[in-house]
């Protein structure tokens, strides 16, 4: 593997750490299998790219992207909480709608930001680490996001959010409004995902309406690999697992691609990701049955939870 490919793997991995954190918030903490992320990733990209092209400061443009993502998550939450649409379907509806929204925002299928000021060019002008500049910035952002999520989940609201996701009946009895918590958690999760999309567009130099395909599965792969490595006993370890899992995943992909491993090509990535996730989910559920405590209620395999309940 070339040094260039290695740096690329780190960059993409750290970027997808943000997606993994987003999925940790929705799937794990909130117990809400959120598919909005396939739409909020390109939404963040589209909004930021449009703002940058429109002359905004790249940091402010990135912030706009996050806000748009939060709004998308809020809408998905609202469809579920207020109108009673099943959580999976609510996410799918948002995701589909966002495809059109993203086209509208950009005015065309893709919007280049080549030659424009981006957060990466700004950072490089301050800290020039050559090939590794982007990696350093993304490392700071990913770790920062991880620490913010850790902190948030320890606050009074954050603890309420965790209770609401794990045990809505108990949360309600303690005066926590479950609907409000879903809206809040979904907004945060999708803001994180949109941040990833926004940074991805600035890193690649282009926002593309199709760039969100497979975001959810890649994020899940990162989350599950992280859990396999570090477990999920505490929030600190679980979020650290998101970052490490995402990087490890991209490193393996880069390795496989550069080695020409059993003829893998870039276009096979989504298939490989899906297979990795399927295998990892099955394996992690097996391990769960062997007595390892489940930290969260959410089950990725039907019927697995009942088996776990008998264990602890």
């Amino acid at each position, binding site marked *: 593997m070339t040094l260039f490919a290695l740096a690329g793997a780190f960059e993409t991995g750290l970027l997808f750490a943000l997606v993994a954190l987003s999925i940790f918030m929705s799937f794990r903490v909130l117990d809400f299998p959120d598919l909005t992320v396939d739409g909020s990733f390109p939404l963040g990209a589209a909004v930021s790219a449009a703002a940058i092209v429109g002359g905004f400061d790249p940091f402010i443009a990135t912030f706009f992207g996050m806000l748009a993502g939060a709004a998308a998550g809020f809408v998905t939450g609202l469809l579920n909480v207020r109108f009673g649409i099943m959580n999976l379907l609510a996410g799918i509806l948002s995701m589909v709608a966002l495809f059109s929204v993203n086209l509208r925002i950009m005015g065309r299928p893709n919007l280049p930001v080549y030659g424009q000021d981006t957060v990466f060019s700004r950072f490089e002008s301050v800290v020039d680490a050559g090939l590794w500049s982007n990696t350093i910035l993304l490392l700071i952002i990913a770790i920062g996001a991880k620490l913010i999520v850790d902190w948030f989940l320890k606050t009074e609201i954050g*603890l309420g959010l965790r*209770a609401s996701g794990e045990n809505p009946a108990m949360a309600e009895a*303690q005066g926590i409004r479950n609907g409000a918590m879903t809206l809040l958690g979904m907004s945060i999760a999708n803001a994180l995902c949109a941040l990833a999309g926004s940074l991805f567009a600035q890193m690649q130099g282009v926002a593309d309406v199709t760039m969100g395909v497979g975001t959810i599965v890649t994020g899940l792969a990162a989350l599950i690999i992280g859990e396999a490595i570090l477990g999920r006993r505490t929030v600190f370890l679980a979020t650290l697992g998101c970052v490490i899992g995402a990087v490890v995943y991209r490193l393996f992909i880069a390795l496989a691609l550069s080695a020409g491993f059993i003829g893998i090509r870039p276009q096979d990535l989504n298939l490989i990701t899906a297979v990795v996730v399927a295998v990892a989910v099955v394996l992690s559920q097996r391990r769960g049955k062997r007595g390892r405590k489940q930290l969260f209620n959410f089950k990725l395999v039907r019927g697995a939870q009942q088996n776990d309940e008998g264990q602890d």
Partner: protein
Amino acid sequence: MLSLSDIRLTFNPGTATEVRALRNVSMQINEGEFVTVIGSNGAGKSTLLSTVVGTVKPDEGSVKLDGLDVTDWPAAKRARYVGRVFQEPRLGTCSSLSIEENLALAAARGKKRGLGLALGKKDQKAMFAEHLEKLGLGLENRMGTPIGALSGGQRQAVSLLMATLLPMKILVLDEHTAALDPSAAHKVLTLSAEIAQERKLTTLMVTHSMRDALAYGSRTLMMNAGQIVLDIKGEERSRLKVSDLLERFGRAAGTEIDDDQLVLA
């Protein structure tokens, strides 16, 4: 003081599965009263509790707490005035959170939750430890343990503590010892009665056991087919035995009790 007036509730109205769960239920529980509620399956005990805690809204009638009409308040809003212990230990506590975190959730009940850290507040931990010590289970030394690692009885005791941590207008116990083994059930029941007495809590306890219904509290209600058919308190109640209760119930309801679980308990 809790007062229910003319509560009516029908599930699935107009369909083949229509159930008139509550028919014109009116009652008043005075401050400091400990009321036990008994009745066979489907008598409307749980539905009655649900209208009190707010998880179910009656079709007609009103629920008032100290004169305040809370009929339209959702359960989360009502939680500031209502302490609640569930039947299932898993329901009342959060398995993955530690004992201290669960208590912190309860300590914020009815208050605005902000961005301050939930744990580590001044004196909070000492206050929790003091309360836990009173349970006599040694949990004050295990505050960092996830609740999921505790036994059902221990969880129910913590759940009871969470329900009674803050001042409230009414404590609602929903067959909270039904899922426990006999000795744990006895311990949790005794604890409930002690806490209720010490703090002079207005309490509404549903139970399946006629003996417990008479042994604890100061007043007993018996429900049948969505109505309160017996309301016994005072001296009359203190002389009453389970067999008398059965007979009185039979006369009041005009039927024989056919719920084995109720008779045997």
